[in-house]
């Protein structure tokens, strides 16, 4: 019983950590000019699986598949700057288009959700320890 809740908490922690990682990556590449041969990719955490979707036996047994980070094509943001060595013949430099507001909010959101998962875990742990105190006070 406890193991399954541990697995659920672990899934939540893993998911939030990956979300934070993806947002950090996107923020990190936001202001780096694109290499024409290898344009920057934006990271997203795969949400094809969510623990509350479906109640198959393996989920109930606590076997959650691990969340994965997937990369996606980034839209281009062109800036006119002929002095930049990365500029093309028209003097345009291409950057990956990153929505900084969205990335910052997902950063904050992931951090808070991680905290919430830790709180849930600690609550469960406290309950389990209290259960062991049953009848032991004498």
């Amino acid at each position: 019983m406890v193991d399954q809740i541990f697995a659920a908490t672990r899934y939540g922690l893993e998911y939030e950590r990956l979300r934070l990682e993806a947002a950090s990556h996107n923020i990190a590449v936001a202001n780096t000019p694109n290499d024409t041969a290898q344009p920057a990719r934006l990271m997203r955490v795969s949400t094809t699986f969510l623990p509350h979707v479906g109640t198959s036996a393996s989920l109930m047994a606590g076997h959650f598949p691990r969340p994965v980070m997937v990369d996606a094509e980034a839209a281009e943001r062109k800036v006119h700057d002929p002095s930049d060595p990365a500029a093309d013949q028209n003097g345009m430099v291409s950057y990956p288009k990153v929505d900084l507001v969205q990335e910052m909010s997902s950063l904050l959101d992931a951090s808070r959700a991680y905290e919430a998962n830790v709180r849930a875990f600690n609550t469960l742990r406290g309950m389990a320890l209290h259960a062991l105190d049953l009848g032991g006070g004498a």
Partner: protein
Amino acid sequence: MSVTPIQPISIGAIDGAREATPLSSLQGNGFMNALGDGLNGINADLSQADALARQLAAGDKIPVHDVMIAFEQAHLKLQMAVEVRNRVVDAYQSLTNMQL
């Protein structure tokens, strides 16, 4: 005058103290098996936590929360085993100290 002879009194065999039926060996094995399985589970959890801690220390890419969760799981199971041991020892002592 006639004296009526005393009739012999017949007493059925006095019941001996009934022996307690001994616990069948099967029951004992069941308890010992349960205890052994529990201890094996704790051992597996402890060694898993140990392996994760070693991997983290060696610089492998392991999230810290995985290690902490493994620690906590091992801790809870160990605590459970300690409580079981306390109860068993308590029961044993109350039996050995019983005044007959």
